[in-house]
């Protein structure tokens, strides 16, 4: 990844042009051709640096609600627990963290009740009890972009 790649990443994360020829416009800002922009983006995708290019939706505006859950799972049961949790389509992130509550996952659902039902079901299916349900009370910030070149 060189300097041009990093500048491309900065632009297409936060200022992706919603125009007929977005890659041409990115190239114009960097003094390179449209084809080179597309080739570089392809390579960044192949390396897994770019996961996708598209829309990120606001769940609340679409009638969804989300929560963060924490579970305390014994080491030898993690694999089985994670398999059950990840089988839910509303689970988008699932991480192991270094704490007594060692498994943290996000869960999106149609309602608080649906989320509570899913958590109860996960407890039932895995035998792991006491999963903490920590829905957002207030959102101060969400900005998932990573800056590479600071001006």
């Amino acid at each position, binding site marked *: 990844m060189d300097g041009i790649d990093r500048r491309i990443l900065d632009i297409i994360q936060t200022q992706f042009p919603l*125009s007929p020829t*977005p890659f041409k416009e990115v190239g114009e800002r960097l003094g390179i051709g449209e084809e080179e922009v597309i080739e570089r983006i392809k390579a960044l995708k192949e390396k897994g640096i770019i996961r996708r290019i598209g*829309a*990120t*939706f606001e769940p609340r505006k*679409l009638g969804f609600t989300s929560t963060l859950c924490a579970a305390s799972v014994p080491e030898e049961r993690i694999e089985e627990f*994670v398999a059950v949790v990840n089988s839910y389509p509303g689970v988008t992130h699932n991480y192991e963290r270094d*704490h007594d509550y060692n498994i943290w996952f996000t869960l999106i659902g149609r309602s608080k009740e649906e989320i509570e039902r899913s958590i109860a079901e996960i407890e039932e299916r895995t035998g792991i009890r006491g999963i903490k349900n*920590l829905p957002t009370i207030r959102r101060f910030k969400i900005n998932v972009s990573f800056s590479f070149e600071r001006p």
Partner: protein
Amino acid sequence: MDEVTRQICRIIQEDIPLSPRPFLEIARRVGKTEEEVLRIVEDLKEKGIIRKFGAVLGHRKAGFRANGMVVWNVPEGERERVGNIMASFKEVTHCYERPTMDGWRYSIFTMVHGKTREECLAIAERISEATGIKDYRVLFSTREFKKRSMKYF
């Protein structure tokens, strides 16, 4: 939301085509013009239904290998003030208030991404100094089991 808009959302919730005219390709698939597709996407963005349009990175592969969830024990009356200060740090990507309960006393959650753990710990320390909140924990991720974008459509 009409059916064409849903069809467009179904495409853009995943990946747009990597071609010179990505929106023209989408337009052909849904039977609209390029201009109409762009107008629909702009409109969804203006309404806040689309929060962001652009590249989503695999942050680990992009060099941000350390990801610390910092949880803070902030007294009830101070959460507004403290949450806003925490959100003002550019290294903080998410800042949420969440409920406390028996066995869980931390009310504010911030996500901090850095190149190393040390970098994340140093950021947390600076936030602690700026807010006066001393009771906090940095929970680093040790394994990633799932990370994907939600399929709403």
